């Protein structure tokens, strides 16, 4: 048994090293290609530009010698911010998540962080870790679930008022200022991921803060979903407030076991904060799959099967609570 364990650990390290190496090589290759492309661009533009020096004389310079300065970039970023539309999302991005079931031991730090960061006051967490066992004859495992942010989202199809919507960057969000509370989306979701605010959420200071922010900065990413509103639907939002600032969703950073990887499908990379991997290679190597693929919902969340596990399933049983997913202040 012990031998086996060290064996699998060695295998894992080996794989990790290899992957790391490949990533490094890939990255070098990419920068080389990118720099070549850039060079080509500047070579192609042979025109002259008129510029004014600090002492007021006009000089003529080859445009290939002109470089974009930092402050202009800043301005561009600001413009992007202003153009940011909560319903459209970030242009040219496609966010995905990979959940490695082999690493999950039900530490539940993801859930605690998620509950805290989203001020969840109801009975039902947005992120849950299921105790799964398909059949008596198969092995049990821990399965964290978030919203799958499907590319064919059943919830969006059935929403009568377009309150839940799909963004270009892959996120499925809810406009809880528009939601009429019919709960059709909840019935439609095969992953039972949606929760309803059966009563006044009472999120305390967050409500006031958010209300103030919305008045000044109406188009903020936080606007979709927070704060919660009585009689409307909530769910995992992939933390648009974090990814807008180039930060990882809270579950990813909170996980002590590096179970969650988050990234951009177009960039073909995902990271769990410690290691950054090539998405397509990761999925191919570790036989990634999606939940209930047969339904055709095309989720944005991928799972890596619970093989070569680092820890015993039973270790997680200590923190397993069948009837609770949100800690309540006593």
């Amino acid at each position, binding site marked *: 048994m012990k031998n086996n364990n060290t064996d699998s650990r060695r295998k894992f390290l080996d794989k990790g090293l290899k992957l790391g190496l490949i990533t490094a090589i890939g990255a070098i290759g990419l920068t080389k290609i990118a720099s070549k492309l850039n060079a080509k661009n500047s070579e192609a533009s042979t025109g002259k530009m008129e510029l004014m020096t600090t002492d007021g004389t006009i000089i003529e310079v080859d445009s290939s010698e002109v470089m974009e300065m930092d402050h202009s970039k800043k301005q561009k970023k600001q413009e992007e911010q202003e153009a940011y539309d909560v319903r459209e999302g970030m242009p040219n991005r496609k966010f995905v998540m990979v959940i490695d079931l082999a690493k999950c031991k039900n530490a539940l730090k993801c859930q605690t962080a998620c509950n805290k960061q989203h001020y969840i006051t109801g009975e039902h967490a947005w992120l849950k870790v299921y105790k799964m066992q398909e059949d008596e004859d198969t092995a049990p495992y821990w399965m964290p679930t978030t919203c799958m942010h499907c590319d064919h989202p*059943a919830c969006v199809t059935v929403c009568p008022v377009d309150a839940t919507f799909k963004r270009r960057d892959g996120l499925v969000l809810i406009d809880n200022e528009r939601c009429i509370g019919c709960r059709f989306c909840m019935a439609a979701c095969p992953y039972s991921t949606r*929760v309803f605010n059966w009563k006044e959420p009472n999120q305390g200071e967050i409500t006031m803060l958010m209300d103030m922010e919305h008045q000044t900065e109406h188009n903020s990413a936080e606007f979709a979903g927070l704060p919660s509103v009585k009689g409307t639907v909530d769910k995992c939002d992939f933390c648009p407030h974090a990814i807008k600032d180039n930060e990882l969703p809270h579950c990813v950073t909170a996980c002590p076991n590096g179970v969650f990887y988050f990234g951009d499908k177009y960039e073909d990379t995902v990271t769990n904060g410690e290691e950054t991997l090539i998405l397509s290679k990761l999925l191919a190597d570790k036989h990634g799959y999606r939940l209930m693929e047969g339904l055709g919902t095309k989720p944005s969340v991928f799972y890596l099967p619970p093989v070569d596990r680092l820890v015993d399933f039973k270790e997680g049983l200590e923190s397993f609570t069948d009837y609770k997913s949100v800690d309540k202040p006593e």
Partner: protein
Amino acid sequence: MKNYDKLLNDLAPQKFGKKGVIWTISLIVLIVLGIAAYIDQVIKGQMVTNMNDYALWGVYISNFVFFVATSFVGTVAVAVLRLTKNNWRTPVVRIAEIIAVAAIIMAGLTIMIDMGRPDRLLNLFIHGRMQSPITWDVIIIPTAMMVCLLLLYFPLLPDFGLLNKYYKDKQPNLSKWYGKLSLNWTGSEAQKSIQSKSIQIIAILIIPVGFMLQTIDAWLFSTLYRVGWDSTNLGAYFISGAAVAGVGALVTATYVLQKVYKLEDYITDLHFDKLGKFLVLVCLIYLYFNLNEYLIPQLTSKKGATTHINVLFVGEYAPLFWFVIVGGLIVPVIVLLFKNGRKPLPMFLIGLLVVAGSWWKRYLIVTPTLLHPFLPIQGVPEEWHHYFPSMHEWVITIGTLAMALLIITILVRYVPIVPIQKTADEQEELELELNKNTTK
């Protein structure tokens, strides 16, 4: 004209007796209680119900489906019997139309009780999207409501005209109202031809509208992935189930009205006999679709389907399920096959059984499916593994049922239950035929 006098005396709407007043007041009390409970729900949120994130729809939705189903009686009794030239229908069509109007109005109201944000109702029109089955419902329910109302109103025109004259001296105020409602009906040939053409159009129109209404109601469920709803059978299943609920309600109401208004001369054993045979037919059709819905998935026994069906056959919901199937469908068929079973009183009892079965049937369509999602129910309070309506839900639901009965009560108070003009015409025809026979 002598003929009319007797008919009018028999059939003109009568004031409530003591019993009628007590009945109406108790209905109003139940409605007021329901409204109070609903206001409380709006203030506190739907936490006052026993619904949760798994049993996310409950008795409000099943009650809504029941009302939609019952409104189908308008289509069945009026349009289908008309097309098949079943002339015995005359004394019961008005009752069917009244039930249909009450049921469809209540369907429209009850669906709003389930909404988490009724204050945002207008969003359905401002932001409505055609791809959502709820939008289809938003279109079809008001359409069906209009068609049902017109189907009740057009045939009433000559009766209102008669009542206008009848009450001229006795109750001038009431007479004025009937006069206005009759749209100056004089009974001229031109008016008669317009009226009969309009009825013809509406009676044909109500067939596709009724079918669409029931089918869209079924699609609210069958467009979702859930086991027990995800079925191509569901549209036809709902239509046939609606016929059962509708005819059951018609039988029950007909018996009560016959007794209360002493209409034994007009609604006879023959009518109960015919209605009984009709109820057997619709029950058999519904049983056929139930076989499709429950036995065939059991044969292939996919895991999800077996879990769902076992809960119904032998599990938590077995007593209710077998009450609905045996009490609500099989027993009525057996009893009504006997001639004595189709006498008024046994018919009334069977009718009650069928209506109760139909109501619980909707509950069984909505609830058990939701309690068996694809992923196991974990990380939620233990109560969330089950669902049974809370006090608020019962009070509100009973309030809606009372409101439906009140609409029926008010309509039968002011509208002749048995069409007067039509009965007179039919009697005249009969007499003509008799005369012909004797002169020969």
